[in-house]
């Protein structure tokens, strides 16, 4: 299946997901479970993506320059750095660790 199929399919689902909020009667979505589940799934998915992008290389767990990027990004966020600065620091850290030969 071509990547365009998944890109457009995911975009269509994203739009319908937004539109549903405008069309569904309040009573259904007023259920307290809805915002609760949406919030928890978002946190869980993002945490999973952090771990996957830091430690996964295919189906192997590896420690490389990305761990350095994770630590530096964490410190930057702790110090309340803006999002863009955090992203740039993550890139710089990984690039420098590789350039210096300290990590793969």
């Amino acid at each position, binding site marked *: 299946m071509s990547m365009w199929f998944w*890109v457009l399919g995911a975009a269509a689902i994203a739009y319908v997901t*937004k539109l549903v909020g405008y069309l569904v009667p309040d009573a259904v979505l007023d259920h307290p479970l809805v915002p609760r589940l949406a919030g928890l799934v978002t946190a869980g998915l993002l945490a999973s993506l952090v771990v996957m992008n830091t430690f996964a290389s295919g189906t192997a767990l590896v420690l490389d320059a990305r761990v350095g990027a994770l630590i530096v990004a964490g410190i930057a966020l702790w110090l309340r750095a803006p999002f863009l600065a955090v992203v740039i620091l993550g890139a710089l850290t990984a690039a420098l660790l590789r350039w210096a030969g300290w990590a793969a």
Partner: protein
Amino acid sequence: MSGSSAVSAGSDHAEPVIPWRSSPAVRVGLSLGIATGLYGISFGALSIAAGLTFWQTQALSALMFTGGSQFAFIGVLSGGGGGAAALGAASLLGVRNTVYGMTMNALLRPQSWRKLIAAQITIDESNAAASAQPTFLERKRGFWVAGVSVFLLWNLFTAVGALLGDAVGDPGQWGLDGAAVAAFLGLLWPRLREREPLAVAVVCGVVTAICIPLVPSGIPVLVAAVVALTWGLIGARSARKKARS
């Protein structure tokens, strides 16, 4: 800011009309547009590094247009997962937009075809810009100004990032994989202030690490989503039981 909200603190019927130029909602909307739009650069560059083409990258920003889901989509791809897993992760992350849509529908009451456009710009930023305002008019301005300006700038800077990403060649040498890690942590960070999302995040992170060597790429993210859902359902049931007894 405080002056205008003091004026409008009365009932919703006698709202003072704040001129467009001095409207706090417009200012909030525009600054969100610039701040968020700028990191479209990182999305564009990372999307190319994940293997998507320039136009696929641009299609995600114009049509999907919800940052978290877009990053999830390319995050699964760069982790070695396939298109189906990328679609699954992106769609699950978009579920919160339904909640935003419902909130905006109740607050702003867009009519007929405006609903179709409002839906497309229903994202974290437009929801935040609207919800923070004290009056109906200001909420409406906050929503539309934030939504439209984020849309325009996010798409512009996605293109800039994608062209840059195309130019740099090997993404690892420039640390783009480190940028992806930082971006996901940055998106997660504001959700870790409360105890329960923090606990769910830790559990899902550990579950992902355990799953990576055991299941095909892209699936660990979906397992984590199921774990978070289950936690949410069980937690809610035990809270109800406690309330009853």
